[in-house]
């Protein structure tokens, strides 16, 4: 999500709500005998509003599960989730009077802090990383297709290398000049051996390692140097093939980069979502126990 000028209305509204809440809290806190409490009228009001904001934020998951239902645009829900979720933090603190309280309320407050912090972290990540992905992964594919694309790269590289010997053999046959066919084949195999060995030892391991770092090919500069060195060992007819193998390595590097960025883009949700549900659940428990008892 790109947080830009289109969020202005939400930002302004949130600022106003925060301002009003603070304007209410400060005199309330200053004049409450024994300090602000969650059970007081104003404290309760803060708690209810804060919980409502949290509940709305939590409904985003449900909203995403029914994308076609006309319940308001998903973008509006997301912005509501962001700003109202953020507002729930100060409102809850105003409800708690900046006190941790007992074990349940302490856990709740810490959960809230972590959830909001992870949410802010996610918002920042999702603000910047899409652009990074666009710039750094021009050959981007659909994330779930990465393994399949990788298999295709391996197959293509295998075909290229298998074709290298044949191409070299053909070149030698045409050059001919009285050399026997057997000898010509031996020469062909020798000259393609450097390519074959490089492929078997370095490149194939890089392509099939499932994203593990490779000392030479994971980095574009060292990979370039390696391929340039390889070209010096090969006849001119194999240079184009070497270039294509280099391009395959670059595609693999892009797939790895995409995979990493994708995990950053979505990985934080593995913490944010379960903790949010825990927060909502415990919040319900707190509300029931606090009101009833």
């Amino acid at each position: 999500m790109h947080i830009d000028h289109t969020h202005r209305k939400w930002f302004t509204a949130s600022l106003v709500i925060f301002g009003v809440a603070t304007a209410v809290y400060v005199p309330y806190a200053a004049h409450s005998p024994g300090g602000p409490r969650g059970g007081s009228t104003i404290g309760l009001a803060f708690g209810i509003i804060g919980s409502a904001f949290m509940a709305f934020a939590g409904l985003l998951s449900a909203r995403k599960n029914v994308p076609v239902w006309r319940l308001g645009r998903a973008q509006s829900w997301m912005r509501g989730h962001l700003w109202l979720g953020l507002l729930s933090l100060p409102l809850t603190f105003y409800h708690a009077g900046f006190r941790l309280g007992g074990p349940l309320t302490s856990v709740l407050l810490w959960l809230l802090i972590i959830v909001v912090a992870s949410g802010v972290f996610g918002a920042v990540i999702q603000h910047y990383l899409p652009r990074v992905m666009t710039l750094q992964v021009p050959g981007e594919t659909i994330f779930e297709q990465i393994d399949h694309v990788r298999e295709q790269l391996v197959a293509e590289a295998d075909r290229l290398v298998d074709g290298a010997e044949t191409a070299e053999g053909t070149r030698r046959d045409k050059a001919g000049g009285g050399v026997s066919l057997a000898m010509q084949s031996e020469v062909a195999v020798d000259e393609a051996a450097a390519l074959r060995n490089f492929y078997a030892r370095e490149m194939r391991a890089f392509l099939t390692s499932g994203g593990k770092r490779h000392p030479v090919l994971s980095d574009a500069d060292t990979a370039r140097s390696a391929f340039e060195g390889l070209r010096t060992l090969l006849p001119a007819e194999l240079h184009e093939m070497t270039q294509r193998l280099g391009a395959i390595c670059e595609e693999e590097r892009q797939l790895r980069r995409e995979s990493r960025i994708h995990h950053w883009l979505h990985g934080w949700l593995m913490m944010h979502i379960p903790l949010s549900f825990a927060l909502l659940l415990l919040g319900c428990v707190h509300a029931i126990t606090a009101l009833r008892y």
Partner: protein
Amino acid sequence: MSGAALVELTIDGKRVAVPAGTSVFDAARLNGIAIPTLCHQQNETPVGVCRLCVVDVNARVFTASCVRPAEPGMVVNTASEKVQRARRTLLEMLMADHLSPCARQQHSGDCELETLAKQAGIAEPRYAKRNASRGKDNSSVSIAVDFDACILCDRCIRGCGEIRENFVLGRMGKGGTAGIAFDDNEPMGESSCVSCGECMVSCPTGALTNRGVTATALGSGPDVQQVSPERLQELPVFKGVSGTFLSLNRGAVVQRRFRAGDVICSEGEYGSTAFYILDGKARVSISTPMAHVKTQGALKKFIGKLSSGLAQRQQDRREEEADQRWIPIDAPVDLNYDNPVAELGPDDLFGEMTCMSLYPRSATVRAETDCTTLEMLRNVLDIMQRNKTFRAQLDKSYRRRALDSHLRSVPVFAELTDDFIASLRESVELVRYSPGQVICKQGDPAEAFYLVRIGFVKVSQAHPGGEIVLAYLSRGDYFGETGLLLGDVRTATCTALDHVEVVRIGADDFRRMIEQFPVIRQKLEAVEQERALMNRQRLSVLHSVPLDSFLAQGLMEAQSLLLLDLNSCTRCDACVRACADAHDGITRLVREGLRFDHYLVATSCRQCLDPLCMVGCPVGSIRRRNSLEVIIEDWCIGCGLCAENCPYGNINLHPFNVTVDDPERPGRKKAVMKQKATSCDLCKDFAEPSCVYACPHDAARRVDPRRFFAGLLGQAPGIARKV
């Protein structure tokens, strides 16, 4: 020999007497003396070009025996050492100019030139071989031309002209560039050659050889019967077809018997053969439901799952729905929309487009009675279509059965009376065009109006910078009216995209029609104005947008793009899920495609100005509305050709469970899966497409690319906004 004066002469020491006028060659032949030759055939006028038949007649020079008449007292030596030396030199010269071993020598070892050369002990000619190839011509479906093997003996020319009287072949060029040519030096397949095979049979070398039957087998079995060339030639429709051709293409046409109820071919299947009914009757129909895909559930605005169902025209009238009553199919009849069933009988040919252009079968044909058909491959159908007798029969059948419904199937001509159509029946012309052939050219005088009977026609205009495609026309469409209405020249070039047949209505008949039926004139003028407006809009687009990578990706062709702003998109796939949810689990959008700037052009229907998806539809069901939006009509048979043709992969096939009559158990129904082509419908029932509505990050948007990218492309600022 009685009654004719005899001429006495001596040949190789033998006294012979032959009728006056006999050539020395024939005189020798009649008396058992063989003289080698290459350019002479008994059934052709001798021309003496190869000079191999030279003999010594004790004159100053040797004489070509095939053209020299025998004279009284002539002393002829056919095999002296000098004569043989001369022949050897000639053979070496011919071999130097002949690609050896040629195709005929390779396949059957009987190239006459190479045989003679071998007999003369010539392994390699002393003279330098030609270093520039004269090329090949493989445009004909049945005869391969290899100019490198040609020795310019002219036997093919005389075979084509004297024996067959087709006069297609001739000579062209001079000296080293001399060669044989078809018509005005056109490729053989595009010339008026009828592929009788006479040239091939006449050719002494491998310059003209048979291409043979294609790899497709016509199958075997108890109901399939191979037909001998002699039997085929007994059939009236094969009258005039070369027996040699039929012999060389044995197996390319078979006789098939179908029992009543058997399916001859099914709609949507791919094939490569055409059928000609010899006897019996067959029923042609479309079994796919006459309905289009409609997204339902939109009335439940807040809750309720959307689903895709089938809706008929009466149930769901779409804006600018076609009023078309007739469905064009690959047969000599059209099917009525309300009852898509028709009958075929003896002498009917169906499956032409499938056979010639490999389109899917457009309808299901089932034998109503026991039926005998000829099933043929393309090379045979090609010959048949060039055969005068067969063409006349097809024409007659079309005029009698299909012209009426074909004309009336065009909404503009709905008012034509029976009398007028009857008067047109004999004056219209059925004209065939090969793929790539120009039917009419921009700027030429307008002399006729055309109705497309089969195939696809491209309409384009030439502009500085290149050709602009304005439209693709298929069966039932028409062109040529603008030039006639305006009394001017052609405003566009119309080219056959595949094997096209058009009904050509001459200018006089056209004028008579619009004078007699002013309503038709008004309708044509209205259509002409709409087309002119569309074309102007299209051209204004082209002139206002600079052509760089925008054009290279075909983005200018699009009227509506689904763009994903990659700087906002978190790759969560909410758009794809929403699209699938809105269409019964089948997404019409893929979050993959080309990029322009920081936008991803998602794979979703672009409503292209040049809709390649329309080309090839066997039933003409994918077409363009007047608003330029692509629409798929009710009679889509689900063959999937449009999906294959779309270069962006934007058309999907949506399966539906339907119940149809069970042919094996009359009166009962059975459930089958039928497919219908679908593409993005912009979620018409909602204010916003579901993909855009469901994007939580405001990354997805549907835009008019020319306006949206105007700023990026250096156009007037402030235009770039969401449509």
